[in-house]
């Protein structure tokens, strides 16, 4: 039986992608129009990591999950109303700026410092989880940097699956080109896993879990440590939106094969 795991999930909060997102450049640099007004959600990539962490913690008795999140306290609080109902975790909030344009090195430093100070965390049993990409508009390197700052050299990105072995080693499936997975076996913790989507569905809202989580979440939020992230000379010369095209059509009667064929026809016609 594998040793109990200490799983730390790094997850940012991002504006709900369902809202109208309009980039603007203000006196403090790039951002989104009315960003503080927009409802926030847990970064979708990191949310997958959280669900996988909770699943793994259930499978390995005695394991524990921390959720380390950096963002404005008010936004963290709002996100916890939903995320807190999904799976059990202990929140470690860091009261910081909104948006993903912060310098990744400064962000990683703040996260690593918070993780290093976690009471009871056993580094030798640590799995550091997060998203391999981010919807925060960040550079997508924060998780690696956190791992490096914590001195963790075993790093996997684009992870879709982890399987623990009785001897403490584990097998990891990482996404590679061509829709395939690379299979690696790691001798043991500590390790960093940047998750792709994983294989788990979004857990249902569970009021029991919500009640249990919230008893610790609110006090933690009230004690959230404020941080100021240094820009480190970072300057954005230009920003542009991804080229996108939205064509909405609701289809109820087409089979998956027919929909796939239509998509293929559309893509090949481009």
């Amino acid at each position: 039986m594998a040793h109990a795991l200490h799983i730390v999930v790094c997850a940012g909060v991002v504006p709900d992608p369902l809202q109208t997102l309009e980039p603007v450049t203000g006196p403090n640099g790039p951002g989104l129009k009315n960003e503080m007004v927009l409802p926030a959600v847990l970064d979708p990539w990191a949310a997958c990591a959280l669900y996988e962490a909770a699943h793994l913690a259930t499978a390995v008795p005695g394991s524990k999950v921390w959720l380390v999140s950096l963002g404005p306290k008010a936004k963290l609080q709002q996100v916890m109303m939903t995320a807190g109902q999904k799976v059990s975790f202990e929140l470690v909030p860091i009261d910081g700026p909104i948006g993903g344009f912060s310098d990744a090195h400064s962000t990683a430093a703040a996260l690593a410092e918070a993780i290093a100070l976690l009471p009871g965390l056993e580094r030798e049993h640590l799995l550091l989880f997060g998203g391999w990409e981010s919807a925060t508009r960040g550079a997508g390197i924060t998780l690696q940097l956190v791992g490096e700052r914590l001195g963790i050299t075993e790093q996997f990105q684009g992870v879709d699956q982890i399987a623990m072995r009785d001897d403490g080693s584990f097998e990891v499936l990482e996404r590679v080109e061509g829709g395939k997975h690379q299979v690696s076996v790691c001798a043991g913790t500590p390790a960093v896993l940047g998750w792709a989507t994983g294989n788990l569905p979004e857990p249902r809202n569970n009021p029991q879990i919500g009640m249990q989580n919230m008893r610790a979440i609110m006090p933690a939020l009230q004690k959230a440590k404020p941080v100021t992230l240094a820009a480190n000379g970072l300057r954005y010369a230009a920003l542009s939106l991804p080229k996108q095209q939205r064509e909405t059509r609701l289809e109820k009667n087409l089979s998956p094969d027919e929909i796939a064929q239509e998509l293929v026809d559309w893509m090949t016609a481009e």
Partner: protein
Amino acid sequence: MSVDTIAADASAAAPERPTMEVDIACVGFGPAMGGFLTTLTRAWSEHPDDPAFASKVALGMPLQVVCYERADDISAGVSGVVTRGKGIRASFPSLNPAEIPMAASITTERVLYLLDPIGASRRSFALRAGDSVLRGLGGLLGVKDHAFELPWTPGFLHKHGGLVLSLGQFNQWVGSQLMASGLVQIWPGTPVSSPIFAGDAVQGLNLADQGVDRSGAPTTDFMAGMAVRAPLTVVGDGPVGAIGQALDQRLGLPPGHAQSEWALGMKMVIELPDSPEGNQLKPGTVWHTFGYPEPEIFGFLYVHPDRLVSVGIFVPSWMGDPSRTAYRYLQHYIQHPALWRYLKDGTLRSWGAKSLQESGKHGEPFLTGDGFARIGEGSGSTNMLTGSGVDEAWTTGVQLADAVVELLRDGKPFSRQNLAATYEARRRASWIEREADAAKNARNGFHRGMVRGMFGMALAGLSRGRLDLVGGVPSAREQIRPFASGKAAGVDAEQAEQLARNARTGGRPLHDALMTARGWPEIELDGRLLVTQQDALLIGGKVQAMPGFADHVVFRDPHLCVPCAEKTCIALCSGQAITQGADGVPAFEREKCVHCGACLWNCAHSPDGVGANIEFRAGAGGLHSAEN
């Protein structure tokens, strides 16, 4: 935690439900619940060591207060508002609108009578005659852009000193403060399916089952909704909420009361173009309109900061015509020259709709019972004379919280008697009751035409309720004019029959076809502001529905639907979630539903002579826009 067995409803097998004990279980996070929880937590945080705030169900713990909200976020699934803010300002004396996104103090108010620039509106002879006079004397009377501004606005319509709000943003602002207090828990995305009854007493709430198919049958990942037991259940789930409905079905309404008057409010939040000075609408501007697109349809425009405006219409139940629909009328409304002058080249930012229970005092249910109290719109607090509901709802929540604190401190149980002596007594002695009494019969005339209705409203308003037109209000079902009578069509009988036949066989829905037949032009979509209704759902309302929940709209006896010609359930469905089914029975798609609840009062048929043929149950999902 424990497990016990409680029947979810009469029709379902009793699942094993996990059970949780709390002190106060609340359902529905709207302005009423905001007022309740804000007032409760303030009293509590001012006296944190007061033993009154110790839990009675979890010894050694503080009071356990949880609130369940159906929508996926507390800022979703609500509408914008213009309000006097009397009760809200009483709770927040130093309120600065700048702290609340999209909020502004009201600066100007206008009441406009809109002429019909198209000629398709169903206007009575009297109205047409009046229109002719206005057109003829337009220069003298200041008619501009086919709109006549009333030179004088009765005081009861004014909202001077009030606020323009996005209720989504306001809810978020209130909710953030509540959560920051750490004293209460608010759980969005959690529909509540039924009260836990013990006789006529309420002992808590059953949360909706998850992991079920459309019919509610368990699937492989079934999770029975939790039974949340509580000495006090606070019901603030609005006019179409499952708990309020269940209470009304169980207890009935007080003698002489009926919930007959309804309206559907539908609106868009539009980002205005950066127009030159002189053609801009200033934040805090409020317009009330009437006369267009149909005489029964009232409209509004109010201006938020940052070039955002809320524009919408109210389609009332007393509009008996089978063209009783909202989205297409709203598109015509925003293109009226008086509005289009500003809105043209705007961009749709958000969209939404909700039912309004407009019976006021006549529709008030039993406000209290053993173990429960009702607040907000579902408790009949909306004032239909002043056109105000949010402030009243907020205040009923405040009154209940004051009562609850009193009972907690006195160590008294939440019995009907105690809640009546504290909460009801406060409400009866307040401005809510006085103004509700004055508004009680203000709507009587509308069932005999718009002109009489306006007269009756003015009479009641100016006399502060001492005078009103005599007249009863038929039930919501009876207000739907049968299409077969021929009166509904406004087109010749042969054409009407053709339109109905086409609709029955899956062609253009009757309401839409009727409008076109009457001369309403097709909407020229621009892809930005004038978009299809489905695009409004997705890019405006951002409508979503989590899988694993049962259909919340159910046709009780599908056979009754087949011969129904009007199918106003289809006509007034805000999200086109109800459409013509192949077998003549309307089809429901919960992924499109915005939970406006219009279907509940838009069915002319009844399998039992009591309720309509449509049930509107607890369901998940709906609007996700926070800008409403």
